């Protein structure tokens, strides 16, 4: 392999080949996409089982989008985002339980905390390449897990925190489960919007440049570390907000549910992988595919014995890693390019 063809850590991404869409066209596409995402909600809102799945789908779509900001666009493959998720969950719950602060406000301190904490803990590890960085973030996850179990006064220790059911809008606790679905939809919509705005901004371009080649980026006047830190802050803060919303949905959080990698930290990555890392729609597509699939598998095989549905999920992961590196969005984009190329040749 010649020096020219360094294999990328994140598979070559998929951006709409060619055009920088105008602001108006972008907005139209965005709203159309949201409308499409709304369809399952509208169709299945009466079925509680599916409603729950859709709610999780929206939430994890938003979380995967947040992860993708630093990992997909920025090329820093983090397996430690569970930490931000957990901080958001614990902060929001704690503020509500102890001081009665409305979660609508309570999600902000967690987000700000992570926007500071994220860059702080990632900064020393940025110079680690690829897998070393991933392992370091894994280590953060483990350390945080241990501390979450330990600091009982803050986190409720191994038993965690329970938020009593006091339905009220201001409490972000809803009697009608559809309101939660709407909440998560809103979160996803905001996350995607942030992603879109980011990738149409200087920071977004700089982020891609940094991911592709740090030396070239510096030669273009980009402060590599500064860019990574800002993207991390954004990604971490957004993830924390998702964590806070999660806490108010399930109303019982504990270290196991927050830090188990295959449920949280790795899942964000998996959703992005399947959908297409480094794209705007990829993480969303991934969520829409995997979350329902996982629930479906659990329902189908749960009776067969413990762990069977997870075996299947593991195979999905394995096969995706082997055969679907660009994800669904990447496959679509490749098809589009081939189609356009064929048109050009006529």
């Amino acid at each position: 392999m010649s020096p020219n063809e360094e294999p990328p850590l994140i598979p070559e991404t998929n951006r709409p080949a060619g055009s920088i869409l105008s602001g108006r066209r972008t907005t139209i596409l965005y709203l159309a996409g949201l409308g499409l995402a709304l369809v399952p909600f509208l169709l299945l809102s009466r079925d509680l089982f599916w409603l729950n799945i859709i709610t999780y789908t929206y939430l994890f779509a938003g979380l995967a989008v947040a992860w993708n900001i630093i990992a997909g666009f920025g090329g820093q493959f983090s397996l430690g985002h569970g930490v931000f998720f957990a901080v958001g969950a614990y902060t929001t719950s704690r503020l509500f339980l102890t001081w009665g602060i409305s979660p609508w406000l309570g999600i902000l301190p967690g987000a700000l905390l992570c926007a500071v904490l994220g860059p702080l803990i990632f900064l020393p590890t940025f110079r680690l390449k690829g897998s070393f960085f991933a392992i370091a973030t894994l280590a953060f996850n483990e350390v945080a897990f241990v501390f979450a179990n330990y600091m009982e006064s803050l986190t409720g220790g191994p038993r965690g925190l329970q938020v009593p059911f006091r339905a009220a809008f201001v409490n972000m606790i809803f009697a009608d489960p559809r309101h939660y679905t709407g909440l998560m939809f809103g979160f996803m919509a905001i996350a995607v919007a942030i992603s879109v705005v980011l990738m149409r901004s200087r920071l977004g371009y700089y982020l891609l440049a940094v991911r592709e080649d740090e030396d070239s980026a510096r030669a273009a006047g980009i402060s590599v570390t500064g860019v990574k830190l800002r993207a991390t802050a954004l990604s971490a803060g957004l993830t924390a907000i998702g964590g806070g919303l999660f806490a108010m949905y399930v109303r019982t959080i504990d270290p196991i549910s927050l830090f188990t990698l295959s449920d949280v930290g790795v899942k964000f990555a998996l959703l992005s992988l399947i959908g297409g890392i480094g794209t705007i729609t990829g993480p969303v597509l991934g969520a829409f595919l995997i979350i329902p699939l996982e629930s479906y598998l659990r329902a189908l095989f749960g009776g067969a014995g413990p762990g069977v549905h997870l075996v299947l999920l593991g195979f999905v992961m394995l096969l995706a890693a082997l055969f679907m590196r660009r994800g669904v969005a990447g496959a679509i984009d490749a098809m589009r390019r081939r189609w356009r190329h064929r048109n050009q040749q006529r």
Partner: protein
Amino acid sequence: MDLVHILVVGLLLGGIYGLVSIGLNLIFGVIRIVNFAHGEFVMLAMYGAYLCYATMGLDPYVSTLLVVPALFVFGVVVYRLVLQPLHNESSMQIFATFGLLIIMQNVILAITRGEGYSVPSKAAALTFGLGDIRITTSRLVIFLAVTATAVALHVFLKKTLIGKSIRAVTQDRQSARLMGINVERTYTITFGIGAALAGLAGVLLSPIYSLSPGIGGNFILAAFAVVVLGGLGSVAGAYFGGMIVGLVEALAGYYIDPELKQAIWFLIFLAVLIVRPTGLFGQVGAEEIGFREQG
């Protein structure tokens, strides 16, 4: 509990960590692959030992002869099917090996239906005294095993032809290829050896721990900590790294707080990663070259 006792506990624990890590270190150092499923290889071997016990009444120290080669074969198969195609794509390796991890854990879970097993061993249960400290044979065996393995591996890498190919390939894949070394076969064998070493660890650990499908998780992060601390590809690194991690855990557990044990050595692991990513014995710059360098 006095200091000596803690040190002994730490060293014995270090033996365990070292034994589990030595295979990972080899894989990591030579092929530069992140095998998140390494802990599951250990777990598989533990269940293999149980199987030998349940069906043939074999003492785990005997079933070593069966389980270790089996793990070698398993490792070769996994490498060929899953990891070889993903060479140079570290993020996909992470996913693939994580997928393997989930598969292996849950296959065992599904088969055993969550029942806990243990593997008794007459030899292992003996204890004897060192001064006024009691040491169980099983832990001592592990300590001896890791020492013997480290020495054997060192000799193997230095003196045998395969060992030298492995070292050549680690240093410079291109040149090794140019000199006629079959790089892919070397990698395959290395991975097999790494898996076999994990198997050895699993079998020897089976008398100590009670078996559960998730037990691999206990080891994998510890193993990474040891590998990073000791340095990529360094046998001595895995050995001494294991000792250090074991000692730190024992000391931290006693002097700071037993519940924070794991956090402490993780923090150290992070500190090492940040300050001296090559570890104590590794080649400087290896971590920055990462996995991009070798064509």
